[in-house]
């Protein structure tokens, strides 16, 4: 890995941390509170018990996928461009799985875990799940995709090594010129 790539990888890692654990949390509380909060949904409880664990799990998944991607591409000695391009479907598969996992984590921490435990996350509500408005679900769906973009696409774009430098979608357009 070139030193510049190492620096960019480090920066994107730090940016990812800041995004997930500081900026995004602040945005949910201050920018999107109207979209997320609904009748009978205490926003702070929801963020602490469902939203944060779900996005932390997504962050761990993205970092794991990134490590696996870098490990594979560092170790590989492709003989030609066709062998390099064979990594493209693998990248897309990883990205799609990460998005699906992200949605699953949201469902799990907002609904499934409470159903399994037979508890109500909001005392006195009588509901075994967090009741998010449709706009809130839509927002979470979008945020999962943005998270995968920031936590997987960006670092793989900036730090894919050697001949894998341009295999990530969009890399030819962004990094391919002289």
């Amino acid at each position, binding site marked *: 890995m*070139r030193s510049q790539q190492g620096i960019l990888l480090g920066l994107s890692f730090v940016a990812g941390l800041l995004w997930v654990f500081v900026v995004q949390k602040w945005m949910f509380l201050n920018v999107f509170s109207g979209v997320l909060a609904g009748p009978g949904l205490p926003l702070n409880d929801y963020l602490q018990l469902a939203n944060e664990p779900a996005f932390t799990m997504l962050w761990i998944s993205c970092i794991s996928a990134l490590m696996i991607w870098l490990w594979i591409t560092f170790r590989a*000695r*492709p*003989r*030609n*461009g*066709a*062998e*390099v*391009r064979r990594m*493209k479907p693998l990248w897309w598969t990883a990205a799609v799985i990460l998005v699906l996992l992200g949605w699953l984590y949201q469902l799990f921490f907002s609904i499934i875990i409470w159903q399994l435990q037979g508890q109500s996350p909001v005392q006195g509500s009588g509901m075994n799940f967090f009741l998010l408005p449709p706009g809130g679900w839509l927002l979470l769906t979008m945020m999962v995709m943005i998270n995968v973009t920031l936590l997987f696409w960006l670092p793989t774009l900036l730090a894919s090594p*050697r*001949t894998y*430098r*341009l*295999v990530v979608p969009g*890399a*030819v*357009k962004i990094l*391919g*010129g*002289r």
Partner: protein
Amino acid sequence: MSVFAIGVGGTGAKCLEALTHLHTCGLLEQGGTSVRLGTFLVEPDQQSTLLARAETAIDRYQKMRRLLGSKADHFARGELRHYGTWSPLSNSSGAISLDQVFPKAILRTRASGLAALFDCLFPPEEQAADLEVGFRGRPPIGSAVMSRVSLTAEAKTGQWQQMLSDIETASGGGETPVIHLFGSVFGGTGASGVPTLGQMLKSWLKEQGLNKVKVNASLLLPYFDFEGQAREDTGVHAEARNFQLNTDAALQYLRSSGTSCFDQVYLVGSDIKARYDFSIGGRSQANGAHLVELLASLGMRHGLKADSSSHYAHVLSRAVENKISWGDIPDSEVVGEGMARAARFGVAWLNNISLELDAAQSVPMPTFLSGAPWAHQFFQPSGQASGTQAGRPSIRSSEELSLKTAIDAYVETLLQWLQQFSSNTGTGFSQELFTPELLERNSNYENALGRVVRGSARPSRDEQDDTVEAIKVLMDALSHKKISHNGMAGLADTLWSLSYCDTGL
């Protein structure tokens, strides 16, 4: 600086084949500047496979050079001009046997004594032998034919004219041109032709007042035997048992009259003989290239050095009896690096890069670039069939593809030669220079370069990191300033520079 190489006979042609490849390796130089190499072949056997192979190497190099133009700073930078192939029989009005070259009927009527001497010197089967397959391993036949040649007359017309004129021009321009003859002393054409032509050239140069021109020769002593026998109806033919006799006679002649023919002589042979199938000549004579021919060609490199004329004879030997390694090659450090670079370039180009360029023709350029980032340094990323972008041509333009075809063709010849001489050493004799099986053309997208070159000339990089992919990564990471040229020429030039890189990544 101009040098003129004259290959006489089949072995001489093989030496010129080797010399052409050495020129590609940048090993014919004086004071760090590549010389202008002129080549000339002397061979009565116009169907000879050995001649055809030398001509192919020369033609392919010339074509590649022409298409490269000034777009390469490192790769194939040496100029080469081929003056043609000349047959000593070409002046004999269609005669193809000795008794036609020296018409017996006329001899008998005009000089019966000479006719009797002719009969005495040449038995009937030698007089009638068809010489279109060469001088059949008989130096006396060749000497008789060669002695009829007049360089003064040839300098006015014919194929010698342009070369002799260029020698005059080079000498008049303040240079010290070198003429270097190559040929065997144990066969027919070379043994008779090299000393005769050397003496003729010396006389002609003296007549013209061109005293600065040096005439050197690499003379090859026996280094191969024949496997198998001639058929009974083959007629007069070269026989391995005569090789030593011919050599003794040639060496005796050189001892007494060598200085009248040559300024410097390089005698190269081998006590361990390669085995070639018997052939009378023509297309069936397909002896593979041999290390001895490389050593003979390196004689020319030695002759270009300023201090080379301090001794008349130069001696080579090897350290281990049954093995040759880089340490046994003269000037091994520079020669080793040059040849190692050429071999590694050849394998990387023909067995990988060229295949990549072929594959690029059938996929959109952005798709190709996503797997081959190095390509953006040389070709326009849009992949348009014509036009350029920031000076980079399209990977599909016909000019670029013509150059690629020319490089492919030449590199195939180069690898074939390297493969032949590194696998053709003789029984019980081994070499530690190259790995022959890795020098063959294949379509496997060869990646590993670590074992192509063996011994001390191998770059000191970890074998597992010594790959074509590593070179591609280096090419991709080069700054624009370090890439002087675009397109196929720039790619070949950059690959040539990076093919021998001692540093890791």
